C-alpha cells in the first residue's frame, strides 16, 4: 500500500506539493510514484532560478530500467533544490515526503489558486487505487 499524506495536495503526474511559507511551495514525488519507478539511481534537478510551468517537465528521475519526466505541479520560479539527491537519489525511494523532497518553487500569483487546482489526498488516493 502506498502512503498518501492528508495535508498534501497532489498532481495527476504523481507529484505532491505543500506550502512552506508565503508564496513558497515545496514539491516532490509521491510514495506511489517511487514504488512504480523501483530503485532510483539518478535525478536531474531543475535549475535554480528557472521558471517552471505547471504540468511541464522540470527535470527527470531515472531508475535502473527507466527514465521518467519530473513535472512541476505549480508555475513559478525555482528557489531551492534538494542537493542531497545528487549523491543519494535513493532518498526518493526511502522518504519521498521528507528527505526526498525535490525543489521549492516561488509561486506566481495566488498560492491558494495554484494549489486549489491540484488533487486532495482523498482524490489522489482514488486515482492510484
Amino acid at each position: 500500500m502506498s502512503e498518501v499524506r492528508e495535508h498534501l495536495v497532489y498532481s495527476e503526474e504523481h507529484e505532491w506539493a505543500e506550502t512552506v511559507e508565503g508564496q513558497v511551495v515545496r514539491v516532490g514525488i509521491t510514495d506511489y510514484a517511487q514504488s512504480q519507478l523501483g530503485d532510483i539511481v539518478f535525478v536531474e534537478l531543475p535549475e535554480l532560478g528557472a521558471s517552471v510551468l505547471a504540468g511541464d517537465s522540470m527535470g527527470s528521475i531515472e531508475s535502473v530500467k527507466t527514465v521518467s519526466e519530473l513535472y512541476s505541479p505549480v508555475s513559478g520560479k525555482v528557489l531551492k533544490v534538494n542537493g542531497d539527491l545528487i549523491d543519494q537519489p535513493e532518498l526518493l525511494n526511502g522518504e519521498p515526503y521528507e528527505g526526498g523532497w525535490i525543489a521549492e518553487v516561488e509561486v506566481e500569483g495566488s498560492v491558494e489558486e495554484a494549489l486549489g487546482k491540484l488533487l486532495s489526498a482523498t482524490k489522489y488516493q482514488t486515482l492510484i487505487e
Partner: protein
Amino acid sequence: MTELRRTPLYPLYAGYPAVRCIDFGGWELPVQFYGIQREHDAVRGQAGLFDVSHMGEFRVTGQYAEAFLQRMTTNDVSRLSAGQAQYTLLCYPDGGVVDDLLVYKLSQDQYMLVVNASNIDKDFTWLSEHLIGDVVLENHSEQTALLALQGPAAAQILARVTAEPIDKLAPFHFLDQAEVCGRKALVSRTGYTGEDGFEIYLDSGDAPHVWRELLRAGETDGLIPTGLGARDTLRFEAKLPLYGQELSKDISPLEAGVGMFVKLAKEGDFIGREALERQKQAGLPRKLVGIEMVDRGIPRSHYPVFADGRQVGEVTTGTQSPTLKRNLGLALLDIAYTELDTEVWVEIRGKQLKAAVVKAPFYKKTQTTGEGAKP
C-alpha cells in the same frame, strides 16, 4: 490487441507482492520480483532463479542435420561432441544477423536450437526455407519450459535436488535425460549473467514443481526468484549481446564483437560468409565499445553519440551498473572513435554530455567453475 502469452509459471508470480510484469515481445513476464538491485546482487553474490520459458526451442533431426546447421550458422558445429553446446549466430547473406542462439548436440543426428522468444517465428521460417536432405525441423517451444539457476551458489543448490554429477559439468556442456527434483530435464552449464550457473529445460507441466523445489532448496543460500530487469543488467555488465540492441539485421557479428563465434575458415560454406569475409578484409566500419559517462547522466538505448561535431554512433544499451555504480553504456561507434579513452559526447535529453570509451566487459567473475574452465 492480441492477448499476451504467459509461461507455465505465471500463476506462481502472484505470490510476490512486489512483482511487476511487462509486455516483452508479446509475453507477460516479470521484470522484477523484489527490485532489480536486490535481484542483481543476489545473482552476483549468491544465486537467482529466472523463468525464461519464453525462449524458443527447436529440434533438428536427420542424417544431414550437421551439414544443415553448418550451412545456417556461423560457428563450427563439427567441433561439437554429443553433450556439448555452442553459442552461434544465424546470418543473412549480407552478414546482418537473423538471431543469436545456442546449438546443443544431442546425438550424431539430433540437435536442439535455443532461440530468442521474439524471433521464434522468423527463425522457424528462415530455417524451414533452407532445409536440405532428410532434415526435419520441429518447434518444441510450447511444451518446453526453461529455468536458469545463476550465481556462485548455483552448483551447490542444484546438487541438493539431483543425483547427477553436475559439479563435473564443464561450461557449455550438458546432461540430457537428467533428473532434477524427480522430473526429467536437460541441464546445461550455461547462462546469460556472467556468473556460473545452469539452464534447466523441462516439460512445461513440470516447471512449477521444479521452480518451487529449487527455491526451497536454495533458501538458506540466499536464492531468490529474479526477473528480466536483473537479467538485462547482469548480461549488460558482462557485455553479452541482446538481439534487437547489440545485434540486428543491420549489425554484423564482427561489429558487435562476437567475431570469435564466426568461423570463416570452417569446412563448408555458410550463409553470410562471403559478406563477413569481405567486411573483415576491408576493415570494420564501426565497432561495439564500452563507454562511461564523465558528466552526470545515464546513457540509454538509442541515445546518439557525437564526436568532432557530428554523430558517430549510438548507444545500444546503457544503465547505471548495479554492481559497479558507474553510468555505463555499450555503444556502436565509427571505428575512428573506438580507442580506449577517446572522448565522445552522448546526447541526453537535448544536452551533449561528455563520456569516454572504456574497457568492456565491465564485469568478469573471478573464480573459475567446472572442470572445463580450468586451464
